[in-house]
């Protein structure tokens, strides 16, 4: 993206780069889907125009032929079928930036239901998250046998620092072993051996920490649109 903008020439006073794709609403009254980024962000050398994935042209459902990639930012910015780039010298007032995908400007985008007078801003950077991939709620584990608990995690807008696991509902935490690092914006596998010693219900939890020190919260955030859910994931298992 930087190469394209530099080649076109960005003049002093540029504020935003706005991106439009070939997709449209079914009826003409529906606002055309466009997203914008600060011009410095668009020119940061990381935001890119993708024309291939894994050495192949992009699949149609992934935005063939060109798609905006905004590492570390929510997918609403990853405009598919990218066809048009505008440089604006004023804030972007189009519906999809000014009115849709807004979050409360608070830590974790968290407010209390019904809270009024909160400043709203466009959704932006992703926080760290982690997930179980081989354990389901209600799974049965044998006492005294070692199970390898596995999952994936990412750091969000920066790299992943560590992934912490708890087998006692969050009282004690231990660090998991991380798989290969494919780059700071990539998913990364984690795994940890687990041997439960008492029968009955156990709650397993997983928590990611990123290199900026951001940690998944123990309690879910709340906002009207349900954006930015990043609570520590829990899974309840039975042992016997």
């Amino acid at each position: 993206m930087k190469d394209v903008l530099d080649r076109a020439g960005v003049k002093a006073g540029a504020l935003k780069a706005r991106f439009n794709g070939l997709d449209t609403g079914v009826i003409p009254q529906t606002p055309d889907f466009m997203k914008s980024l600060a011009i410095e962000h668009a020119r940061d050398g990381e935001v890119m125009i993708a024309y291939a994935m894994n050495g192949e042209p992009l699949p149609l459902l992934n935005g063939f032929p060109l798609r905006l990639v905004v590492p570390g930012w929510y997918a609403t910015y990853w405009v598919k079928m990218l066809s048009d780039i505008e440089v604006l010298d004023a804030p972007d007032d189009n519906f999809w930036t000014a009115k849709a995908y807004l979050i409360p400007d608070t830590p974790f985008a968290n407010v209390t239901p019904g809270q009024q007078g909160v400043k709203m801003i466009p959704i932006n950077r992703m926080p760290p998250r982690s997930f179980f991939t081989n354990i389901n709620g209600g799974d049965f584990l044998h006492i005294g046998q070692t199970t390898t608990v596995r999952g994936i995690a990412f750091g969000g807008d920066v790299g992943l620092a560590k992934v912490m696991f708890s087998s006692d509902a969050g009282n004690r935490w231990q660090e998991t072993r991380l798989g290969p690092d494919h780059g700071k914006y990539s998913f990364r596998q984690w795994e940890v051996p687990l041997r439960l010693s008492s029968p009955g219900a156990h709650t397993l939890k997983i928590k990611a920490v990123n290199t900026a020190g951001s940690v998944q919260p123990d309690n879910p955030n709340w906002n009207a649109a349900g954006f930015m859910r990043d609570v520590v994931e829990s899974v309840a298992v039975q042992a016997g």
Partner: protein
Amino acid sequence: MGDNVKNASARAIAVIWTVPALLLITLATSLAGPHASESKVSVELPTDETPFPPGSGAELTPQCLICHSADMVLRQPPLTPAEWVGEIDKMRNAFGAPLPADQVDELARYLCSINGRQCSSGG
């Protein structure tokens, strides 16, 4: 260093021309139609067969289906009639749903009957 600069500018030019080149190729293949030698890709889009449940007001729901599935409505939290009015007005005002203003309340009552709470109290 000269080579590096040359390589860098060559890369930049390659990148810059890849964009319009790809767009041109896409346009050319679509304009050329079925006679051109082109590779074809078939994509099966996910379908949604869930209908709106029958009930008084269900005849208004084709307006909803212009843009989204019935499933999308049924997967929302249960809303009061007043909250459904808010959702319907968002669809009308922000997205241009062609539902006349005098049908909003009837649709809100129907949506409450299929996915709502406090439906009789008026919200």
